[in-house]
């Protein structure tokens, strides 16, 4: 009995260690959320998500990200990560140039969202967004960080934020 318990305990503990080394969580929330999601028991804080969405729609992106982080501390919810990436995009977007640091963080978040989405396909039904799929958002974030000749086009100042 002791040996069977020991083998089960060892298997569970070693799986946890392999998972920790593979995912490199940075906070306790990421650890607990990751473990909960592996049992299908992870859920976001809906109230914090709604707060984040409200801040996002009022262009208060720093506040929005704080609320969204509170809603999804383990970074395991695709939709929340999509809005997180979108907030980086909207904050970093400029008529003349884009903020590369914010776009890079947005790219990390949208990559997380794509990885978490079923079949890696994520479409968010939100009429306020110019881009509703994670693929569009990702392409826009990559484009914003790319240096090319069209960056010098003066007509760029007339483009609109999506």
């Amino acid at each position, binding site marked *: 009995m002791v040996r069977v318990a020991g*083998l089960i305990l060892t298997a569970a503990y070693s799986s946890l260690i392999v998972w920790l080394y593979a995912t490199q969580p940075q906070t306790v929330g990421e650890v607990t959320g990751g473990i909960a999601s592996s049992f299908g028991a992870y859920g976001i804080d809906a109230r914090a998500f709604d707060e984040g969405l409200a801040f996002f729609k009022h262009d208060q992106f720093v506040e929005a990200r704080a609320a969204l982080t509170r809603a999804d501390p383990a970074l395991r919810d695709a939709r929340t990560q999509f809005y997180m990436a979108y907030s980086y995009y909207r904050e970093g977007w400029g008529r003349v140039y884009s903020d590369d640091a914010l776009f890079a963080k947005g790219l990390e978040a949208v990559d997380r969202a794509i990885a978490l989405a079923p079949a890696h396909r994520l479409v968010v039904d939100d009429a306020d967004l110019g881009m509703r799929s994670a693929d569009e958002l990702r392409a826009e974030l990559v484009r914003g960080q790319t240096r090319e000749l069209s960056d010098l086009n003066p007509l760029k100042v007339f483009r609109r934020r999506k």
Partner: protein
Amino acid sequence: MTALREAIVLPVLFLTVALLGGVRLAADARLVPPTLAALLLGTLLVGAFLRARVLAPEALMHVRRTWLENTSGAVVILTLFAASAQMFNLLTPEQGLLHVIFIVFFGVQLLTTIAAIGERAAMLRSVAVLFGAMFALRFVFLENLYAPGGGLVARLVTAAAEGVTLGALGYTSHAPATGYVGFATLTLYLIGLVLVGQPQPVAAQHATAISTRGEDAPRARQ
């Protein structure tokens, strides 16, 4: 060895060492998996343990034991190997010339130990001294030398060392908490080694010797 120690205490102890051995704390927390060199050194060390009877394989895996007992014995050996590899990972700088120097030193030292030491107690002392000394070298000397905001002497010494080696040393310092985690890891590992193969009591050894002689006697007569 009791079933509790073999099936639960030792695997949990060694897996904890394997987990904590890769912890590096700085601005962020990282878990560093063992390098190939650490795995090879871990193999050498387990070989040294077998030779010096720190680890008695027949006490963990034997034809007379049940499959369940043999499985838990194999788990002890595997977790000891993982913990040993992570100990080298912990004590060796991650990159640069110092990484190579430490690996070569560990390799030579282990080969010497395997050749020279054949007793359990001497092997345990040797490993404790080796790991203790390397821990002090890495987490007391090097970490203080390369700590950000070090004094003028530390900056002069590191600048001279980097200059002489054409910048090949490339040591990256960590937060002091890494050293404390490392110390706990080293302590757990040494406790595990002491627990892994307690020498048999004299009476039991005597009984084993008589039984072995009894089995060999008919063969000798033949």
